[in-house]
């Protein structure tokens, strides 16, 4: 499977990473190089094999449904690049 420029543009759009038209040839070449190399997995018979989603050593734990954290508004906002009072800011999204 080989990526065409339109697909590279589409992936970049999905990932919300801006790219210039001039980036496309190199990106396309590198991504296709990696994809070509991982094609080797197609020779593995994975019929009836369960996917591994984690090492499975930790069981999910239950706890009391109580607040364990919070009251840290200043700390939470301390690294916001453009906070306004107790809010994050974004460009206008609703016309």
């Amino acid at each position: 499977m080989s990526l065409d420029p339109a697909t590279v543009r589409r992936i970049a759009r999905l990932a919300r990473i801006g790219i210039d038209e001039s980036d496309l040839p190199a990106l396309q070449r590198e991504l296709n190089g990696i994809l070509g190399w991982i094609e080797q997995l197609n020779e593995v018979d994975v019929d009836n094999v369960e996917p591994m989603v984690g090492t499975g050593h930790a069981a999910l734990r239950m706890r009391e449904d109580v607040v364990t954290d919070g009251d840290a508004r200043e700390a939470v906002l301390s690294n916001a690049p453009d906070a306004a009072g107790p809010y994050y800011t974004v460009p206008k999204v609703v016309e």
Partner: protein
Amino acid sequence: MMLTELTIAAAHEGLRRRDFSAEELVGAHLAAIDRLNGRLNAFITVTPEQALAAARRADAILAGGEEAPVLTGIPLGIKDLFCTDGVRTTAASRMLEEFVPPYESTVTANLLADGAVFVGKTNLDEFAMGSANITSVFGAVENPWKRAGDAETVLVPGGSSGGSAAAVAARLAMGATGTDTGGSIRQPASYCGIAGIKPTYGRCSRWGTIAFASSLDQAGPMARTVEDCAILLESMAGFDTRDSTSVDIAVPDYRAACGRSLKGMKVGIPAEYRVAGMPAEIEAAWEQGIAWLREAGCEIVEVSLPYTRYGLATYYIVAPAECSSNLARYDGVRFGRRVPGATLDELYEATRREGFGAEVRRRILMGTYVLSAGYYDAYYLRAQKVRNLIRKDFESAFRTVDVLLTPTAPSPAFAQGEKMDDPVQMYLNDVFTVPASMAGVPAMSVPAGLSASGLPLGLQVIGRSFDEESVFAAASALERAAGFTHRPAVRAEVV
């Protein structure tokens, strides 16, 4: 006495006897950083005032006559991927260039509770993605080792924990934290002639460690001896309710395990690790390691891990997929760099284009692709299935043997500029380390000798899940047999 030459174990004894103070010990390392960091670039941030203040507190504890924890007053480097309260934490990325965490990671909090002194934050590949420590926005790290007869060529320290490895090898810190997703502790340890262990997945809490690939990321220690790694891991490890993958089992006495007899231990030699084109000196180091373990009383057993040959290709689907998901949080809104845009999407796209370097962008794009509608089954789901087969390979081998012995890396450290044109060539550095990461089992690199070019070569000991003790025992035996006393050309006491 050259304070920067001591091991952590020896420094602890010296501090207890008051042969020297923690302030002197930390001061000696800060002076070495001052002299060498401009060249090696092992630290992104150095915190001399905090370190000296912490050293004075350690001295007060040591003077108090009570039993001081073993890390009291010991100067450590912290990979700049661990959040440190009030100290800038960058992940070596432009995205987090100004990020100051308002909290402490569990692993570093554990070390601080045991009295450790942090001298600074060590350099790494951006977001821990790389095998040569060349993708840091703060510049590449120089390996303190030099090829014999070639003082000029700058070698890479390996990656991604390259700053930690270089700092420890050059005696700028007595030990350091690393993180290992596909080999990021073990490969740089091998390239820099030190020891480093990736413990079992779930052994060290991931809370407060900047995420790359969550099903693989594990913190671990790097130090100049196996025993020092054992001391550090015992402090770093432990159950943490804030990490849902943290495993609630007791942390054993790793230091005691270093002295265990190997009589009757079964050591597996995986046939599949004899890859085509492996340099003769790597093969020879491996054979030597096998002989050493046999002399130590081990039984050597040939084993087969048929699916490990797919480890690297599987890794380069699973890790980018998880990376693309994890790094979605860098949106230019809540924290980190922000590049303005007229619309929210333009803000995202401009921020993420400028905030991430080329390798990180490449992995996010690859991950986005393998997770996208229509390709998920063909790539991601298939990779998860192959990963299961790799894990089963290890499980079946560990029904017969106690540990596995392999080389850590397919070559000694290479020069800056080599292997940089083709991402796949760079990825191949991790061919021996990635399978253990995929399976989640513990693995350690220990220096075994020098290459013909005078550079360190590491051997890797892989163990059963949660049996770091056998790994420490075998690695200690290799360390004793190797008697590795070589030191890098660039180090604290060389002016």
